[in-house]
């Protein structure tokens, strides 16, 4: 062992996000400018950085998850994307995408790392663990 690092994921690749959606069976709708949510801000959670109440419901693209009433908004901010969604149980998203959209972030990370690591000549192995997914890159 040499070092351990924690990373705060930032979605930088549009193509890898689309690929993640495809792998999960979600529909990525480019240029859809609004996403379905409760429709009214009730103030029960902090607003994501750079987002105001007026921004809610608006997006640059949207993700539709089968079986869910609500949708996920994909918003471009500077050189990355953020995901906006309503986790109200009625919408069904929390159950399908996991807490903090974990399942979607997992799929995105796998897509991104696999593609770029292979370009650099790494062999990539992936396996399911109790806590999530483990990827092992070997040169």
């Amino acid at each position, binding site marked *: *062992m*040499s*070092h*351990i*690092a*924690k*990373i*705060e*994921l*930032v979605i*930088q690749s549009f193509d890898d996000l689309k690929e993640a959606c495809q792998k999960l069976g979600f529909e990525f709708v480019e240029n859809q400018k609004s996403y379905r949510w409760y429709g009214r801000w009730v103030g029960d959670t902090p607003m994501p950085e750079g987002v105001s109440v007026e921004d809610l419901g608006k997006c640059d693209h949207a993700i539709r998850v089968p079986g869910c009433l609500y949708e996920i908004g994909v918003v471009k901010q500077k050189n990355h994307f953020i995901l906006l969604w309503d986790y109200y149980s009625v919408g069904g998203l929390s159950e399908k995408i*996991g*807490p*903090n*959209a*974990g*399942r*979607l*972030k*997992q799929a995105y*990370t*796998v897509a*991104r*790392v696999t593609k*770029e*690591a292979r370009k*650099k000549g*790494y062999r990539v192995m992936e396996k399911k*663990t109790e*806590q*999530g*997914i*483990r*990827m*092992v*890159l*070997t*040169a």
Partner: protein
Amino acid sequence: MKEIVIDISDDGEVCIETKGFQGKACLEESQFIKDLLGKETAKKLTAAYYYGKEKVKKYLQLCG
């Protein structure tokens, strides 16, 4: 064997661990993964990071 291990939890948390590297090579080799994924929020260096090629000489008093 040199490995870069990436654990992604079900709630989206990412942890990177390097194994089998000596010295600063672990940081250099894994930097591209960190750049791909986002911001590094914490780092812990392990004993192998400090292992170098210098030999440490120890003098032991054997008698008297």
